[in-house]
């Protein structure tokens, strides 16, 4: 069964008729040709498919496309404007916070949203108390980025990149 939906993807309005079983990830990759979000596990366990959906980070393999009708989606491709990398992306490049690159767009989207979550006062597992604003220490960054697996083991560089991007006042 197919249903018509509209998505705003990286600034572009896209309409498509989609099988109700199709995940948002497959809709992006197989129907819209947006392959920035990666499929690493299809079970919400690796984070490679992370995008910003209405400004929040989500694993698109766990979303059904039909349930996202009208959503605004930003992938790592869309974070770069006019070929210029987003400051978080630029910091990833400088710190070599990637090797094979397959988890990287998801890491970047996750980092951008994570910085915003902390700014909004969302606590993590390692935050002292639930009410005080969270200072993004290395420990906080590591904890909040742990939904994005990297088998190449670039974690220390990912933390360094995020730290540097934050130092430049990065907001999502």
């Amino acid at each position, binding site marked *: 069964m197919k249903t018509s939906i509209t998505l705003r993807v990286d600034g572009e309005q896209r309409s498509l008729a989609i099988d109700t079983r199709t995940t948002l990830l497959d809709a992006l990759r197989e129907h819209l040709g947006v*392959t920035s979000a*990666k499929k690493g596990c299809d079970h919400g366990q690796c984070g490679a498919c992370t995008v910003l959906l209405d400004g929040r980070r989500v694993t698109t393999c766990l979303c059904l496309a039909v349930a996202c009708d009208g959503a605004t989606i930003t992938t790592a491709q869309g974070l*770069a404007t006019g070929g210029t990398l987003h400051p978080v992306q630029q910091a*990833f490049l400088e710190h070599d916070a990637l090797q094979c*690159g*397959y988890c990287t767009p998801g890491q970047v989207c996750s980092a951008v949203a994570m910085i915003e979550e902390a700014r909004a006062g969302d606590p993590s597992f390692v935050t002292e108390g639930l009410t005080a604003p969270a200072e993004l220490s290395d420990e906080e960054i590591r*904890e909040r980025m742990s939904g994005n697996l*990297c088998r190449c*083991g670039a974690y*220390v560089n990912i933390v360094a990149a995020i730290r540097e991007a934050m130092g430049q006042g990065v907001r999502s």
Partner: protein
Amino acid sequence: MSANSDGGRRPAKPSAGTGVNGLLEPHAMGTSPARMDGAAKIMGTAPYAFEHRFERPVYLHPVQSTIARGRITRIDSRAAESAEGVIAVVTHESAPRLASAENKELWVLQSDEVHFRGQFIAAVIAESPEAAHQAADLVGVEYEAAPHDVSLSVARKDLYAPKTVNAGYPTDTEEGDAEAAFAAAAVKVDATYTTPMEHNSPMEPHTTVALWQPPKLTLFDSTQSVHSVRTTVAKTLGLQVDQIRVISPYVGGGFGSKGEPHAHNILAVLAALRAPGRAVKLALTRQQMFCLAGYRTPTIQRFRLGAARDGQLTSIIHDVVELTSRFREFAEQTAVPTRLMYASPNRRTRHRLAALDLPKPSWMRAPGETPGMFAGEVAMDELAAACGLDPIELRVRNEPARDPESGKPWGNRHLVECLREGARRFSWDQRDPKPRQRIEAGWLLGSGVASSTYPRYILPGSRAAIRLGGEGRYVVRIGAADLGTGTWTTLTQIAADALGCPIDAVKLEIGDTELPNATVAGGSSGISSWGCAIVAAARELRRVHGSRPPPGAEASAETPKDADDNRLAQHSFGAQFAEVRVNAETGEVRLSRMLGVFSAGRIINPRLARSQFIGGMTMGLSMALHEESVIDERFGHVINHDFAGYHIAVNADVANLDAVWLDEVDDRSNPMGSRGIGEIGIVGAAAAIANAVYHATGKRVRDLPITPDKLLV
């Protein structure tokens, strides 16, 4: 930029004279340009195998066996075939016939036999992934199950000695009388160490998109070697090599599991033959990767060390028991590093295999060295404790002047320098050697050290072609692979120095069988093997066309034969230092600090090299504390077959982890002065952590991974 480009402090100078090929003058080499494919990968626009654009593709979903051994007695694909969107169902009854049964792993859908649980027994081709997936569930299968056997133990009566072990090493070696010397030793360590089944688990699933446009077959593949995929597929299918093109510009990690073609390559091709003109897309699911893409065998290693009271080794005995699949042999070379690490007049190493009804084990980052050095380096730590010696001092006292088994001179052995440099940086001299001495806020603190090593390989058979384009850029072509290793960047740097031009005057082309033949990105041999071919091609260009070649000038050359290969024992070495905290109540182990110091010849690109080293160390940490594929013996499969059940290190598991290297140039290795660095980072990492856990707790855990239960008993 990392702070590591300073390397170590040892002022290693290249020895007098140059190697057989003459050293390149480093201009681009040794600098740290950012990853050239970095921006595209960071935006997600670099196309991996599944992501190339295809006109009207179709999707393949496999059906897998639910028994571990036996025969298919009936397979009914009618319901699947009539499901909406289904194009065809391929089974062993309907699949095209293959030409070569030599590699049983690739003998896909050719018979009713089942060799392991999860084997491909059918596949559905459909217009959408959803339709293919749903129809795959509609294929009815009946079996005649046979009893399966998936239990590895040293007590098995059917353990056997393979003819050789991986990479062609002898199965057994013996010098002197190791048993007698061990029996007579003043100090002894006799312990059994185990490492579990582990899965490579690259983030990008194994993928093949196959397009059959008779007589041409095009494969978009996720592979560490386009040319070996082409050769193997051609042989298996009975096609000519030049009918096949394999394209793989970007690879989402491999760690050995994409080093050789697996069954999915053939399954995709069989389906493509059924759907000519349509690109057939197959990516294994994460669950399927746990039975169809290789893994590291579990090992049971009895390690015996005999020594004088001063720590001088008199006997080393390393007996390894591990597994292979019954249908095709793979013998990991686990005891091989024991043959070269330390001096001893008496030594024995042995490998024995159990052939089981399991998928075939294969290469996983530093096969042999990784599990073997876990056992050996923990045993050395145990010996140091037994002798009352500092573990670094013990290793220094047993430093061999020559390669112990072959008697060959070392090409470039700097293990002791690595240990000493690491000790200095890690403040090792402030360590109280007694275990269980430091406790802070309920956490026991300890530190440990281990050596690492990895052979220097250069594989024969790569060819590079260079042409000076009209716009004054050199086009350098070789079918090499970049699986995150940095090939796009480092080969460009090597080519620039070989051609005496800046890096932006080089346009590199890799990852395609249309390019000249390249050997596998495996055995940490890639940059050395391909780099040698590029240097040879550049020299050929100069020889034919002089120092100012005209536009259109071209030349090509192969990786030259290596005259030093048999004269010297060439290996990289390193030292790993770890500091851990162990929760005194729960047994939870947290890594707080880790440092690797490596000796690997010239470092081509420090920024990218550091990533390789710390990446290997991070995988070693993951091996030490987390990873274990658990076989359910009732059914013969890995039950924790996804990232929820098979934990790999996440960001929160890694703390202060860094790698540095000795500032050196290995003029005996190759014209770049380099050795490979893709694998050494994992070697010894788990042992350093296990030794740190012992130092923290006084408990010696010999079975990986070091989970809390093992510290609470």
